[in-house]
């Protein structure tokens, strides 16, 4: 038997979501922020969603100056600011195999969402930024369209990128 972290209910081995409270039992590494946390009471007064950290980051405002890029994890709001001008590996860190991606989605529940260790790369070129899937198990998507593996595709400011089932927004800052 395993025990649910969230409600302490006993669950059968292999259970993916707790049958009592619905919490995920397969989150590896740091716990993902649940929306529950956003509604947690402060001094016994229930706070409302609107008062908490924004769950969806406001729409991007395009700017002309190109100095860096940013990936925004939609369901947690985490912004990953990146240096432009070099190849960036998107994946999940694996110490044993010596894989240290520039964008480690393991911190955002990437394991759960089906992000491969070496999932995709973002490559700058003179036209802008190209996204290339590295033959990931669960695919890379631009605005809902799946990329063929190893075929670099141009991405633009505001595009929605999906790695496995994890959704990020690409922004040029």
């Amino acid at each position, binding site marked *: 038997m395993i025990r649910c972290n969230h409600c302490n209910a006993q669950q059968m081995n292999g259970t993916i979501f707790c049958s009592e409270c619905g919490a995920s039992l397969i989150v590896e590494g740091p716990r993902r922020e649940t929306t*529950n946390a956003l*509604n947690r009471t402060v001094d016994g007064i229930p706070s409302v969603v609107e008062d908490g950290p924004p769950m969806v980051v406001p729409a991007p405002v395009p700017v002309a100056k190109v100095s860096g890029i940013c990936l925004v994890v939609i369901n947690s709001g985490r912004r990953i600011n990146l240096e432009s001008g070099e190849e960036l590996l998107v994946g999940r860190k694996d110490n044993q195999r010596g894989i240290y991606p520039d964008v480690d989605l393991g911190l955002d529940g990437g394991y759960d969402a089906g992000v491969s260790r070496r999932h995709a790369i973002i490559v700058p070129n003179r036209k802008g930024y190209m996204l290339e899937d590295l033959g990931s198990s669960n695919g890379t998507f631009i605005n809902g369209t799946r990329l063929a593996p190893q075929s670099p595709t141009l991405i633009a400011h505001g595009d929605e990128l999906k790695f496995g089932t994890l959704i990020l927004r690409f922004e040029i800052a």
Partner: protein
Amino acid sequence: MAPGIQLRSTLSRSVLPDAAEEQLIYVLLEMSAHGVPTSTPKLPLNLCLVIDRSSSMRGERLQQVKEGANRIVDMLGEEDCLSLVTFNDRAEVVITSQRVRNKVDLKRMIGGVEAAGGTEMATGMALALQEVQRALVSRGVSRILLLTDGRTYGDEGRCVEIVRRAQGRGVGLTALGIGNEWNEDLLETMSARENSRTQYITSASEISQIFTDEVKRMHSVFAQDMNLRAEMRPASRLRSLDRVRPFIAAVQATEEKDLIWAANLGDWPGGDPQAFLLEVVVPPLAIGDHPLLRVTLRYSLPGMNLLNQEGNVVLRIGVRQAASVNYAVDVTVKHWLERLVAYRLQAGAWQDMAAGRIEDASRRLQMAGTRLFDAGDVDLAHTVQDEATRLLRSGQTSAEGRKRIKYGTRGLMGGETQEREA
């Protein structure tokens, strides 16, 4: 390959660690048709429209209903049967069950319906069953299409009883609710059987489209009498069986004899994907490969005169030493499970609420919101969060929010699609 329905199964994990205790495994069962011409002759449709004509239907709603009904008349042919029953405080048969020959006359009768009075559904349903049975044929699709915008008082039990009788005779129900006043528990209960569904219409302008879509769906039925049988291995058991596509609904499975479970899946309209999720409890097994269960689907393809067809699939699992087993789960299985869990959580929340356990209800709704976020349904997740917050603050939820959540978590909101590349 002979024409027929193929079964495809995906396990949450195909390799389990060896363990001295029971383990849970999830099975996604998808069906696809092979070699069945998409243009098989339409099966005759035997349709009864049951329309609420209480005074609240006055105006655009009834106007849209009439327009929708007229469009249905246009879509039906001579081999189809149509009847129309209206109800307010009383019920009456406006069109007795008849072949769709004189379309002008039929439309004139539809045009004469006026809105007035209250809502008493059971008598309307009783008349509908009577009409639909007049034209009951062995080959064809029989359906009652109900539309209401209000609550019926005191005859809910009779409504369910009548609709169960209809479903027992192979007559399905499509129950449409419009506005915020109708009783979603009643419509859900009435349609919790094979060949039945319920849908929430948020705006009167959708009525006509939903009517015609529904008739198209009924006309596209190509497989009927689908029955699923699951033969389990000794000491294992089926913990649950749910439909996940085209919408989420628990499927009633009965244990026919030891280790053999059976469920009636009804008809298959061509455009609807069919997928089911099974929770299977696996007993401790030795290291090696084992058959887990055999799933058999029996069905008929009446358009091709292929009756009592059968297809099956045997699911196997491997058991390995715990140290060598990777815990990754299949993302597609997980995605549908996530939606199913969200649906179950909100259903539990309404039960908690009815029993006065407001905090538990709110907690369940919040978790349902988390599951929906993870499943990528952000809009619905926000609706759920808003209601969870409202519930904690005021001890109540809004009628509209509740309906949106109940129907949205099942994938049954008008105009929304649940399609997703996996």
